[in-house]
């Protein structure tokens, strides 16, 4: 399941992302009550008691997103806006910088398409942005294509101003993105408890 929704209060996005995740976990798996959130040594979150349930969350000002799956998955959402030129040299491969064309709005959209794809890949990989960013390159399209074998991507424009990218290992992500109108109520009374640093079996 891939879902996203707006968050009206700035500064609450991180917590809201996990509220959205709780809703998705309850809908998909019937989870309720206390869930222990652990992290791998690289920082990837997982459910201590349900490590085979893979998930990813993302937030930006005004929106949150999550993806829940049975294989490694990563999601990222960003608003299209003026970007840091410095980051294009830090994070984009030359072939990607060549695709930053057109007027400022088109370049901004292209940049955040690349950025969210790289972030979604890093989350699926389990490293976040701690991988050689310029060595992984994308060609924008539907679906986006990358030079990393075995990982598949989708990308959607949400509410006309946000770019959502999802990465999935092994098979393409589902095309349907559930866009909620507002942050759901906590269904199933799910609360989170901080767990330990660990690496479950099967994690990359």
């Amino acid at each position, binding site marked *: 399941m891939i879902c996203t929704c707006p968050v009206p209060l*700035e*500064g609450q*996005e*991180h917590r809201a992302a996990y509220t959205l995740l709780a809703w998705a976990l309850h809908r998909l798996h019937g989870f309720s009550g206390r869930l222990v959130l652990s992290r791998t040594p*690289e*920082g990837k979150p997982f459910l201590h008691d349900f490590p085979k349930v893979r998930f990813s969350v*993302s*937030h*930006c000002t005004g929106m949150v997103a999550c993806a829940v799956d049975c294989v490694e998955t990563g999601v*990222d959402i*960003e608003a299209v806006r003026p970007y*840091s030129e*410095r*980051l294009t040299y*830090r*994070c984009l491969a030359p072939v990607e910088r060549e695709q930053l064309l057109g007027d400022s709005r088109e370049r901004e959209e292209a940049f955040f398409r690349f*950025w969210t794809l790289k*972030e979604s890949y890093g989350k699926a990989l389990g*490293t*976040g*942005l*701690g*991988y*050689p*960013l310029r060595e992984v390159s994308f060609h924008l399209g539907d679906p986006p294509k990358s030079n990393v074998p075995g990982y598949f991507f989708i990308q959607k424009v949400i509410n006309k101003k946000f770019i959502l990218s999802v990465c999935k290992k092994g098979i393409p992500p589902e095309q349907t993105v559930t866009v909620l109108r507002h942050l759901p109520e906590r269904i199933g009374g799910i609360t989170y408890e901080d767990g330990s640093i660990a690496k479950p079996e099967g994690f990359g």
Partner: protein
Amino acid sequence: MFEQLKEMIRNYVQVADEDIHRDSRFVEDLGFNSYEFMCLVGEVEDEFDIEVEEREAAKIKTVQEALDYIATLTEE
């Protein structure tokens, strides 16, 4: 250095100066996402004339860890 870093942090997230502590986590407490954090990394590099590797940046979770990392690079 702590005051300098706080000022830079406030360029990216709406948080009061008194709410930024050394043990504040960039994501959970200060509300950073990865894009904002990487922009902050770039600003720190310019301010302190250092170069931060992505892999090392990904390990930094708190303000104190950022200060410690900057200190190791500026001492070299």
